[in-house]
């Protein structure tokens, strides 16, 4: 179990919040977040592991920094794919992200904060 001061973010969590925030009101699903963390679809960097990503998403959702919703089944079925679980950043999450960026100005998605 990683020790952390209450209210602080792990580097991965800060990156995830940044990735979700960059998607705005469209929301982001797990694979898109994983791609953003690795630097985009064309990046050669390895994608984050499923367990690591979804555990972090679960933590952020439980802490109220992200909200999530399953997309409509009919829409997924029409597109011929499984339903996506979409995530949005909450007001609390946006505040925490702003504070994390202020603490580390060079922080960008795809890089861990210093």
């Amino acid at each position: 179990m990683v020790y952390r001061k209450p209210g602080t973010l792990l580097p991965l969590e800060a990156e995830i919040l940044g990735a979700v925030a960059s998607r705005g009101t469209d929301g982001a699903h797990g694979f898109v977040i994983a791609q953003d963390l690795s630097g985009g679809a064309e990046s050669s960097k390895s994608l984050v592991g499923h367990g690591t990503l979804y555990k972090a998403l679960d933590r952020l959702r439980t802490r109220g920094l992200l909200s999530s919703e399953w997309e409509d089944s009919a829409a997924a079925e029409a597109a011929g794919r499984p339903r996506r679980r979409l995530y949005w950043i909450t007001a609390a999450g946006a505040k925490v992200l702003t504070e994390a960026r202020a603490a580390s100005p060079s922080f960008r998605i795809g890089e861990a904060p210093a």
Partner: protein
Amino acid sequence: MTLESTPGARFATWWARTLTRTAESGIAYDRRAEIASDVHEQLTQAWGRDELSAGSRSVVARVLRGMPADLAWRAGLELRPNRFSWHLRNPSTAITTLLVAMIPFNVAAEANAAAEPVAPRYWTLFDYGGPLWAVTQLVGGVILLFALLSLGSRVSRRWIGEAPRFEPQSRLERARRFNTAALGVSLAGSAVFRFGALGPIGGVFWFAFSVLLAVYLALLVGTVAVKLLTLGRYLPKVRT
């Protein structure tokens, strides 16, 4: 070959299913569905680039990289409310987990005892036998206590409450789960009642363990035979 039939997708599906087998149904469903969606998106993108094999390998790598976090997440689920009631209602999972924790200490303690005539105590700086047996008997005691609580909870439903019953996928699985729990209790009993005047009780437990182990091996052979006989169901479906 369909996306779902690639080795990566099948491995990811198998891992998600195994990981969430005895988890709360809602949480288990959400996790499996989320992984299925992620894998589908990744393989669809790889297929679009004509790199399905590489995409499949990448999925396997992601599953492997995430396994430690998966196991930590799964262990964390056991701290949720009402989880103890579920384990009392379905004791096999908890007993098997404790058994797996107990076995290394039990084997080490037995090996230490067997080596003693050859390597007398004064040759070693520290006598490992005592602590090893202490841990073995402690875990064994927990198993026996838990088994008693589970039996008692069937009489007084107050402890179980509304905890759902785990539904095995087949009669073979039900038999294996029951047998594994009984194995755990009998090995625990043989370890706890091992020394002194309680030795004969431990002997009875050890006899039961030997019989149950033979039954378990027979069930294992049966399970493998069933899987081999139904192998055709696991071949990849080819999309024409």
